[in-house]
């Protein structure tokens, strides 16, 4: 049962990382233009981050 002492914190930390990642994308407004983003991926022009508009 000792394995639980590692696994539970690890699963919580990994989940928490995912949550933090999602909150980061939300705060940096990456869901403002879902249609445009899905098409910009096809562009040859390099486009590193969304403009804060």
């Amino acid at each position, binding site marked *: 049962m000792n394995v*639980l002492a590692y696994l539970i914190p690890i699963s919580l930390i990994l*989940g928490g990382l995912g949550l933090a990642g*999602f*909150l980061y994308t939300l705060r940096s407004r990456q869901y403002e233009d879902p249609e445009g983003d899905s098409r910009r991926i096809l562009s040859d022009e390099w486009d590193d981050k969304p*403009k804060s508009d």
Partner: protein
Amino acid sequence: MTATATNGPASCPGCLSAPAARAEVPLPDAQLALSLPTIHCQACISKVENSLTAHAGVRAARVNLTRKRVMIDAAPGVTAQELADLVMAAGFEAHELDLGALSQTQTDAASRDILMRLAVAGFAAMNVMLLSVAVWSGATDATRDMFHWISAAITLPALAFSAQPFFRNAWAALRAGRLNMDVPITLAIVLAVVTSLWETGLSGKHAYFDAALTLVFFLLAGRWLDSRARSAARSAAEELTALEVPRAFRIQNGETSEIAVSALRLGDHVLVRPGARAPVDGVVIDGTSEVDRSALTGEAMPVMRTVGDPMSTGEVNLTGPLTLEATAVGTDTSLHQLAALVAVAESGRSRYTSLADRAAKLYAPGVHILSALAFLGWLLWSGDMRVSLNIAAAVLIITCPCALGLAVPAVTTAASGRLFRKGLLIKNATALERLAEVDTVVFDKTGTVTLGMPRATNWHDLTQDQQSLAYALARGSSHPLAQAIVTAAQDDDTAEIALSNLTEQPGFGTQAHYADRPVRLGRPEWIGALVETDGLCTALDTGEGAPIILRFEDRPRPGAADLMAALKRQGMRVILLSGDRQAPVAQTAAHLGMPDFAAEMLPADKVAFVQRLTDEGQRVLMIGDGLNDTGALAAAHVSISPAQALDAARAASDIVLLGQDLMPVADAVATARLATKRIRENFQIATVYNIVAVPLAVAGLATPLIAALAMSTSSLTVSVNALRIRGRG
């Protein structure tokens, strides 16, 4: 996008609505927005962005394809118009947007707030569920207690954050002495957490931490769908408003300056150029012109206006420049007074309760009574406080309206998404439900079933020479009838001829010399021609022989005749109402196959007409575009206006039609009926699930596993059922 509101000139709406003031004070950077209605692909994005950044004054340009607009950071001197021209040159339609009107829509902070709470609830639910699986599959004693304590440690802070909207709404309702959907939700969450903590403390078997979290997760998903559907509609509706940049030309001490309409004062002299709308109510003090009043009265024929005549806000000046002395500005104008009337009429409509509200009204007390009865029954039978409280909590959790909370938003989001792709914008939350009940459709004529753009009917009766002459004369004017002649001539490739001394006599017509004889095109009275009918017509004086009369009729919108046929097939009664004169109305009605019509209706007559139909028990859908329709639009059960309609008409209607084609209206009615059917089905699914689950809970058999299973199943079923709307059509 809140950045717009915090940095740059957009932080001050006054600067935006007063472009004249902006030009005087040098600002570091200008934020501009253009609407791009035709943009649709990756290549479009690159083309627009590249054509804009090629301009020396543009620092950055970013297209938002979802909202079909581009935001531009530009140097202070750059005007939106020159950038719009650049984009037009690249092959895309572009219109300037008023950022002042737009900035309110950009802060959809509420939607992001819900999404954040949804993420936290989802994260916590997943982790607690993992721990719960261990308990369900047989963890006992100390291990089970430890898992329960860890679950509690995750659940409490997660719920404290993510369930706040429910707590707040429930508290507000209770303080006002009402019950709403959030009261049983809050009670279930609180009771579930409290009994679970108590059980965990006594090392009991069952804890409902996971159930409380999944409940919050599913309900937040419903709220998020709801807010997303509404914010899409709201932002598009306000974009329509932002397209009309409110500016006026004021004449002071002989100088003309461009100022914001809100800065106009009583007694100001205002210049109304040909093609512009009057920004104020006023009296003409200089100039003669023809005025298009169709938006206000429904008359298709322009009216002569000269010194001393009144002109109202919203009327369009057609041929010559007019100077008005303002007699009413701002909120005193006829347009605003109409809008105020509409607000009164609308308050009646807001009394409509949606299906969800009606269900909640039955549901909330029912659940509480059931849970209290279960508690009392078990307390009397077993005398065990702990068992009774556990069962009461299980009843509350298992009946909690996951499915009910998801049923309506999931269906309306799917339905309004489908209609949006067809060019219809749902502005009001209950519009779909009301649309499904409609059995009578009332149309306005000018600008609604017709395009408001006349077409020459007897053009081909003219000889080649006469056509060329009419074409050459018509090119000198921007009058709609002259433009109709130009269009007809260009369609026929009519030969061009040269005229000398071409001048426009505002309000009358154009005159010129051709082969040393005077030729004229304009009002029949001016030319001296006799007209026996009262249809739209103009006269051509070729300088030899009798004048020739050219007749016109308004063209029906594309899809109008098909729409009438489709509506009749759906069993609807269709009626045409117009402020125009008898003859053209009868002609249009006959053309579209509408037996019921009424002409020369004043705005009040239209309202009375709609009211009478409503009193007779009919559910009326009103479709109109003018100021004269706003009252009727607000009085009807549900209303639609085209995007080209005046602001007041759009504001009064529940649904906005974005394209030229009228046919989507038939789809809207069909989709609305389908959506209402799905909502009812979803309620039935939720009811069936409760009929199965509630006896289990009351009998004390609802373990946390059963609660979690039952709750997820019913939520997923209603979501999948809602998505079926998307697939069809």
